């Protein structure tokens, strides 16, 4: 399973790699990382349809997670990747906007990795 994590904080990569140490070692999950919405779109163009799940922060400089979500859902009609949005605010406004734009799930920061793992199990 390929997961693209989009977050402007580079330390997120180390965190995911350590949190999913076993899964990565066992080859169950492959992680790719992008530090901006633009970066994420580039990666997706180069790795067409490889990402099954995209985990994106909303609050980023440049293209925001919401805009990225819009791009993804408009561009990849069949089948669009599964998109989980992450935000620091966890407010209704962003939640509703993300849901309206077709986000598949919604997580709040600080990330609850146990919950995330459960969701990934469920998706598997």
């Amino acid at each position: 399973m390929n997961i693209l994590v989009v977050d402007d904080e580079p330390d997120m990569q180390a965190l995911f790699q350590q949190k999913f140490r076993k899964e990565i070692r066992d080859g169950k999950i492959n992680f790719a990382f992008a530090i901006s919405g633009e970066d994420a779109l580039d990666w997706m163009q180069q790795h067409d349809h490889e990402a099954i799940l995209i985990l994106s922060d909303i609050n980023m400089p440049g293209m925001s997670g919401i805009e990225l979500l819009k791009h993804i859902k408009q561009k990849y009609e069949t089948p669009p990747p599964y998109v989980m949005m992450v935000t620091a605010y966890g407010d209704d406004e962003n939640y509703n906007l993300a849901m309206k734009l077709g986000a598949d799930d919604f997580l709040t920061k600080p990330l609850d990795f146990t919950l995330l793992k459960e969701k990934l199990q469920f998706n598997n």
Partner: protein
Amino acid sequence: MLKMFAPNPDWEKILLRLMYVNLVLFGLEIAFSAGDYTIWFWHIVQLMIVAFVIKIPQFAAARGVVLGVVPLVAVFLIKDLTKLLFPEFFVKVEGYLDIASAVAITWMVAMIIKSQKQNKALTKEREARLKEEERHRFIEAQNMKLEEQVAIRTSELIQQKEELQNALFELQRTQTQLIQSEKMASLGELTAGIAHEIQNPLNFVNNFSEVSCELVDEIEVALQKNDAKEAAAIAGNIKENLQKITHHGKRADAIVKGMLQHSRSSSGKKEPTDMNALADEYLRLSYHGLRAKDKLFNASFTTHFDATIGIVQVIPQDMGRVLLNLFTNAFYSVAEKKKMLRQGYEPTVSVTTQKQNNNIVIIVKDNGIGIPQKVLDKIYQPFFTTKPTGQGTGLGLSMSYDIIKAHGGEIQVETKEGEGAEFIISIPSSA
């Protein structure tokens, strides 16, 4: 005749009565032909009139006439006296006395005419003088009126001046309050941004310490399996994590310190300051502050920091305010342009630091709406703002200008309407 010269109505009445008495007496004399005895009475009356006119100063105007009459009176008196006392002599000189009478009458007529002329001239003169006096009085009255008006106006002006001074004082006080509230408002607007900025490093602190706990468990498992290599690798990870925890802890610490510094009134003291860190911190704060206010707002920001500029002596709170203001303006400008253009526009704000000779140069650049040429010379004026009412105090750039001046530096702007603006701050590095 004296009535003509009467100095006042009272005298006029008296003289009128005397004239009636005179007429009655005259009438009586003619009617009863009293004869020579009444002549003496008339002489006495005449002499009394002459003496009367000469004595009383009010009849000065009539003196000319009286002087004309005197010779005639004298001639008649002499004639009658001579006739009475020296009848023979009188017969001899009667002819001379008649001539004298004629001369006296002529003299009298001449004197009366002359007196009339003089009196006319006097009357004219008096009238002119009266007119002059009247005019003088009028001018005097006008002067008084004017003086009164001037006094009223002066007191009004003094009152107005006092009112204006009070108003000015009030305005100055309000301005001080506004500057204070501007500082506080800019902090308030950033509260959400600050919360976000603190939340992010705190999340990392929590996440990395949590994951390190899990790694310790894994080390134990590895040691049980006698897999020293794996244990060592995990230990390396833990060390990295602890470094990350320290890093993010310090990051949160710096933000809180910066926030406290910003809200605290400026110490006014220059301190060794890492300008790059200060610029970076305030760039993030203003970005997140605007993001928190407007969910749809977005812009990318880039930093070009020259690591060699080192530590600069500045008043950090004040410089922070300047930077915060410039960043907030830049983000506002790109957000406005984004609202108009939407597609195909990449809102970008950048900050650059450089060393130029003995100066540190900080450049805040945006590709927003730019500043129209016609308002360019007003942007540093207090209370000048192009933002809608309630969205800007118009004190940001004015305050920034003052702060940079106080640091012995300069602030310049290069802008093209519709294309963006570039604010260039230059401060002496040794200041």
